C-alpha cells in the first residue's frame, strides 16, 4: 500500500479506481494554412462557436443545479470575447501565422501576464485564459477533448483545466487528485460545489503508472492510499458510511426551528469576516449574523477606509441578510496588527494594551467615521452595533454619547437613520463579566467573546501549544463568569449571546443553553451541528 500526501481542498471520502488523464500538448504540425483573411474568418467562426458552446454548457450546468460551474463557464464565454485576446490573434494572423497557432500564442501571452501578477486569484485566471484558448484551438483543429468514463472513477491529472473539470459527468466523478495545484484553484472550488473530495499538490508520486489501481481518497487528511489492504478498506468504508449518514442527517435539519425539545427558542447566528461570507451563511441555513468583524475594511491597506466605502460594505451585508439581524462589531485591533495609518504606540503587551474600543475612543475621528457609516447603513436592514474589549462603565457612556451626536448630525444633514439600533458590548474580560450587573443597565445586549475571555481569565495565551495543559476552554472559572454574566443580563432584561469558539463546541451546547444563553453565533459550517444539539435538549 502506497500512501501519497497532498493538500485536502475538499472534504469527504472516496474509494474507487484511479484513472490518470494525460493532456496532449503536441505542437500543431502540418496544419494547412491559407490566406490571412481566410485564417481570420476561421478564427472568428471558431470563436463564435466557442462562445455558443460555453453558453449552452452554462445553461446545462445551471439546470443541473451546478451554479458555481455555470458561472465559471459564463466567465469563460466573456474571456473568449475579450478584445485584447482578439487583437493578439488578429495581429499574428495578419503576420502570416495560422489561426490555431495564433490562438495558442495570443492566449499564452495573456496567460503569462496574469501569472506575473501579485495576486493569487489573478494568477489563477491564467488557467482560465489558457483553457479558453485551448477550446478555440481545438475547434479550429477539429479536436474534441472530452473526458468521459463508463464507470465512476477517481480522476488524477497533472492539473485539470476548468473546462475539463466541468465537462466531467458529476455521477462519474468520485474524487479529484492533482499533481500540482493550490487551494483556491478551480479544482478546489468545483470539487466543493460537487461535494466530492479533492487532494491537490500531491507531486510526482501521482503518475499514469497508477492507472486502474484501487485507491482511497481522504479529503480531510489530504491523503491517497493506493492499493489499500483489506483492514484499511474496511475502516474507510465505515468512515464513508458514517460521514454520508451524518451529512444527510444534518441536511435534514435545514429549515427546522432553532429550539430545544422543550420549545425554548435560541437564536443561532453566524460569525463572518467580510460581505463575501454572507453566501456561506445562507448556504448553511444561518438565520442572522451575531458577529460581523469589521476589521477586514481596515487591514492590509495604506489609508483608512472613508465613510463612503464603509457605508457601502455595511449596506451590502445588511441588505443581503434581508431583514435578519446583523450585529456589526466596531474596529477591534491592537498593536499586534499592522495598521500604518494608525498611530499605535509600540507596546510590550499588545493583548493588554490600547485595543478594541479603547483604541477607538483615543482615535475619535476614525471612530466617528465608522459610526457615521454604520448609522447611514442602518436603514438597509436590521442593524445592531457591538463594541469590543469593554472594561469600564465610562467607556460605554462616552460611546453612547458619541453615537447620539453622530445620529443627530446625520439627521441634520438629511440622512435617514433607522429608528432603533440596539447597542451592545462584548464581554471578553474578567472585569466586564464581574461588573456585568452594572454594564447590563447601559446596553441592549451582551455577546461573550469566549476566546479572549478564556485567555484573560486563565492568564493563558491560547495560541501557545506549550500551554495546552493549562488552558482548558471548559475551565470552570470561565463557565462561572459566563453564568454570572447571563444572570446579570437577564436581571436587567437584556439578551446575552456567545460568539467565541465555545458557541460552536457541540459538547458545550447543552451547558450554555442550560445557563440561559439566548444566542449562539458560530462559523457557518457549525450551524447545522449546533442546531442538532439544540433540538435534542430537554431541560
Amino acid at each position, binding site marked *: 500500500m502506497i500512501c501519497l500526501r497532498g493538500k485536502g481542498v475538499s472534504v469527504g471520502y472516496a474509494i474507487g479506481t484511479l484513472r490518470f488523464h494525460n493532456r496532449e500538448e503536441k505542437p500543431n504540425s502540418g496544419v494547412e494554412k491559407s490566406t490571412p483573411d481566410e485564417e481570420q474568418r476561421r478564427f472568428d467562426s471558431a470563436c463564435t462557436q466557442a462562445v455558443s458552446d460555453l453558453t449552452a454548457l452554462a445553461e446545462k450546468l445551471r439546470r443541473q443545479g451546478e451554479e458555481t460551474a455555470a458561472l465559471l463557464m459564463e466567465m469563460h464565454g466573456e474571456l473568449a470575447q475579450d478584445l485584447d485576446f482578439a487583437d493578439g490573434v488578429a495581429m499574428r494572423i495578419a503576420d502570416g501565422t495560422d489561426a490555431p497557432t495564433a490562438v495558442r500564442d495570443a492566449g499564452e501571452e495573456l496567460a503569462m501576464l496574469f501569472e506575473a501578477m501579485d495576486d493569487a486569484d489573478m494568477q489563477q485566471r491564467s488557467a482560465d485564459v489558457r483553457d479558453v484558448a485551448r477550446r478555440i484551438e481545438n475547434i479550429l483543429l477539429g479536436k474534441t477533448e472530452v473526458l468521459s468514463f463508463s464507470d465512476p472513477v477517481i480522476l488524477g491529472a497533472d492539473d485539470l483545466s476548468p473546462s475539463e473539470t466541468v465537462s466531467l459527468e458529476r455521477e462519474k466523478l468520485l474524487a479529484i487528485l492533482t499533481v500540482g495545484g493550490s487551494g483556491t484553484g478551480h479544482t478546489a472550488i468545483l470539487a466543493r460545489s460537487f461535494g466530492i473530495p479533492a487532494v491537490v499538490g500531491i507531486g510526482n508520486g501521482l503518475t499514469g503508472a497508477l492507472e486502474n489501481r484501487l485507491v482511497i481518497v481522504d479529503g480531510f487528511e489530504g491523503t491517497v492510499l493506493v492499493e489499500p489492504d483489506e483492514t484499511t478498506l474496511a475502516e474507510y468504508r465505515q468512515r464513508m458510511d458514517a460521514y454520508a449518514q451524518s451529512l444527510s442527517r444534518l441536511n435534514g435539519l435545514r429549515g427546522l426551528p432553532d429550539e430545544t425539545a422543550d420549545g425554548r427558542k435560541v437564536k443561532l447566528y453566524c460569525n463572518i469576516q467580510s460581505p463575501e461570507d454572507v453566501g456561506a451563511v445562507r448556504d448553511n441555513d444561518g438565520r442572522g449574523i451575531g458577529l460581523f468583524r469589521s476589521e477586514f475594511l481596515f487591514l492590509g491597506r495604506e489609508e483608512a477606509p472613508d465613510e463612503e466605502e464603509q457605508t*457601502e460594505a455595511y449596506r451590502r451585508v445588511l441588505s443581503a441578510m434581508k431583514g435578519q439581524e446583523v450585529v456589526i462589531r466596531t474596529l477591534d485591533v491592537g498593536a499586534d496588527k499592522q495598521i500604518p495609518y494608525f498611530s499605535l504606540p509600540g507596546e510590550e503587551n499588545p493583548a493588554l494594551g490600547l485595543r478594541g474600543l479603547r483604541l477607538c475612543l483615543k482615535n475619535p475621528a476614525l471612530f466617528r467615521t465608522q459610526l457615521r457609516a454604520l448609522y447611514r447603513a442602518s436603514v438597509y436592514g436590521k442593524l445592531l452595533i457591538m463594541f469590543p474589549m469593554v472594561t469600564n462603565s465610562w467607556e460605554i457612556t462616552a460611546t453612547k454619547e458619541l453615537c447620539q451626536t453622530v445620529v443627530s448630525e446625520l439627521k441634520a444633514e438629511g440622512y435617514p437613520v433607522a429608528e432603533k439600533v440596539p447597542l451592545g458590548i462584548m464581554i471578553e474580560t474578567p472585569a466586564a463579566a464581574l461588573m456585568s450587573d452594572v454594564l447590563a443597565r447601559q446596553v441592549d445586549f451582551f455577546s461573550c467573546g469566549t476566546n479572549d475571555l478564556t485567555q484573560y481569565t486563565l492568564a493563558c495565551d491560547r495560541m501557545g501549544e506549550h500551554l495546552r495543559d493549562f488552558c482548558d476552554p471548559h475551565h470552570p472559572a470561565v463557565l462561572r463568569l459566563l453564568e454570572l454574566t447571563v444572570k446579570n443580563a437577564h436581571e436587567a432584561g437584556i439578551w446575552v449571546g456567545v460568539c467565541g469558539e465555545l458557541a460552536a463546541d457541540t459538547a458545550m451546547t447543552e451547558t450554555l443553553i442550560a445557563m440561559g444563553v439566548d444566542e449562539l453565533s458560530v462559523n457557518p459550517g457549525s450551524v447545522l451541528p449546533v442546531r442538532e444539539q439544540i433540538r435534542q435538549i430537554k431541560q
Partner: protein
Amino acid sequence: MITFDYTLTDPMGLHARPAGQLVKEAKAFASKITVTCKGQSAEAVRMMAIMRLGTKAGDTVTVCVEGADEEAAASAIKTFFEENT
C-alpha cells in the same frame, strides 16, 4: 467628458465576475469608458485589461466617460459600481 471616482469595497476588487459584467454594461454604450487605478488604465470593454489592473478593496478607480451618450453611460456605470463592487 464626465469623470467620477469610486472606491471599491469588494475584497477581490474588479475580479473576473464583476469585470465581465462591467464589460457587458460598457458595451451597451457608444461612449469610450476608461477605468484608471494606481496609474494604470484600461478600457471598460476590455475584460482582461480590467482584471489586470489588479484592483482590491479600498482602491479608488477613476472612471472617464466620453461620447455622445456620456450622461447615460456615466450614470449606468456608476450604478453598476455601487451595486457590484
